[in-house]
């Protein structure tokens, strides 16, 4: 049942993505509506599936690769729906939804069985620390998608080669604005997540900070985004420079998340491949 919902959600996300792609090239406003509606419906099903797994597992399911990818896709899809409802363009789905499809699509191939949780992780802290951090990462991922859209839009306007993309994408200021807004949303979540992690680490391992690879790279992520906010708010950076910095931050997020787990070892590496 849960898997059925999950597969249907994936189909819904796929539909949403192709609808937003179509909305770039076709005139009918129905494509934009379909992009939002399909993604929202898929998200609802995805939430249901997630809820069912939560019920089965007993706590927030973020242990196995399947669960991690699933929750990531869910969070990013939620952000897309939120952004679009707020004042975004469903056409942003062309940039944000591929991330969802990657996560959820990847999850389809992962081992879907419920994993037993090792003693170190059986803590209420996990129910908060992990989702908070994941939410931060999802914000940064979505911000990156908007940043990529900005770079494409800017290249077209600067180069005076306008295509259907520049015609249907939101303005440069809007895209740069969403990039910033999403990072500003993720930043406190990141700060909170890392802090909670330290508190939990003290409880579980007896120290707040141990320069474990995951901790170290999460800190580096935090530093890069702090620089982003500083450059933006204090120095007044806008546009390309700001977006490049956000891309650098996201690259570090990816490494913090995937690279550390699969390339480095340490106390944090227990996500099975």
């Amino acid at each position, binding site marked *: 049942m849960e898997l059925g919902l999950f597969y249907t959600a994936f189909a819904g996300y796929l539909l949403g993505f192709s609808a937003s792609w179509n909305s770039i090239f076709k*005139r*009918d406003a129905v494509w934009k509506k379909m992009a939002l509606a399909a993604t929202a419906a898929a998200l609802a099903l995805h939430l249901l599936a997630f809820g069912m797994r939560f019920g089965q597992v007993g706590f927030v399911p973020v242990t196995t690769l399947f669960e991690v990818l699933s929750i990531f896709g869910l969070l990013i899809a939620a952000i897309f729906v939120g952004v679009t409802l707020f004042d975004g363009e469903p056409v942003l789905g062309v940039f944000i939804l591929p991330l969802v499809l990657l996560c959820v699509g990847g999850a389809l191939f992962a081992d879907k069985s419920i994993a037993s949780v090792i003693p170190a992780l059986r803590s209420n802290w996990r129910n908060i620390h992990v989702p908070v951090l994941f939410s931060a990462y999802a914000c940064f991922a979505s911000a990156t998608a908007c940043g990529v859209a900005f770079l494409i*839009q800017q290249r077209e*306007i*600067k180069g*005076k080669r*306008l295509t259907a993309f*520049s015609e249907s994408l*939101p*303005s*440069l*200021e*809007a895209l740069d604005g969403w990039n910033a807004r999403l990072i500003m949303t993720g930043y406190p979540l990141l700060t909170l997540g890392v802090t909670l992690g330290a508190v939990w680490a003290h409880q579980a391992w007896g120290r707040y900070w141990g320069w474990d690879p995951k901790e170290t790279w999460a800190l580096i992520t935090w530093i890069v985004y702090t620089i982003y906010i500083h450059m*933006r708010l204090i*120095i*007044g*950076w*806008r*546009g*390309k*420079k*700001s977006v490049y910095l956000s891309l650098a931050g996201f690259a570090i997020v990816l490494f913090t998340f995937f690279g550390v787990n699969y390339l480095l070892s340490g106390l944090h590496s227990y996500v099975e491949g």
Partner: protein
Amino acid sequence: MSLILFGINHKTAPVSLREKFSLAPQRLREELLRWRQELSLSEILMLSTCNRFEVYTASPKEDGESARLRERFALLGAGEVLYQYREPESVSHLFQVACGLDSMVVGEGEILSQVKEAYRIAHEARTTDKRLNVLFQRAIFVGKEARTKTGIGMGNISVGSVAATLALKIFGDLSKKTVLVAGAGKMSEKALKHLLSFGPERVYLVNRTFENAQEMAARFSGVAVPWEKLEEALFACDIAIISTGAERFLITQEQVMRRQLKAPGRALFLIDISVPRNVEPSIGSLDNVYLYNIDDLQAIADENLGKRQNEVAKAGAMVSRHVEEFMGWYRSLGGGAREVSLKHR
């Protein structure tokens, strides 16, 4: 039964003749009543714009109204340049007109509101009945459909509207932005008008002759700025339309770099309409600066016009389908058979 059209347009008659036929909306009503009475027509509608004058009539039984109309047009001096159609060509022509396929600029939108207005006036004057009512209602529907289902009316095709659309693409919302116009000229005024329709917060007018700046400022509700303060105004604006007769570069890279240093994130959209160019071209490569000259804007306008042309066949096919459908209904009116219903899809 007949649906007849007599008319002249920009393709057949020079403006000097079209002028004579041009009727203000207030006078349209009395002309309709007059023509109907004098020419013994059952239904009549007039479409009068600066590019065309067309008379549509319908009657349950043809009884020489074509001849009377031709005579009237000849009397008014249009005997040699008029065109006349009867159904189904008259239907096809009207549908094409409504779609903007017969306009000077293909796909233009004004003609549709003109058709709506002409119908409204005739309908109110009660000079139309079932045939013309349905014909024009259907024509308005087809005109709308062509613009939503095809690209016939899409894209900006004037330099001014292209510039305004680009400004929106860069800034999104212009309500907190400042526009600067340096110099004067028809083209810069057109571009300014288009920008103004999006409600920028402030407009600065700069001119070598301060009185000219003041005159423009009065017309556009802006602020006249003395020539010496041009750089200051440039630093304070977001969008600048430059159109002076200067022989050398008025806006230099060094100036814009200084502006960007002061406010690193502040985007600048420079529209250089002057010939020779007033803005140093290398400025276009600076971060957050967007520079378009008149050739760039014209190229976009031309490309959009080309795209519209490509849609003509599609719109034409749509018109043909609708003509067929309409004629199906029209013919069913005549005989004893029951009237075919004309669905609104």
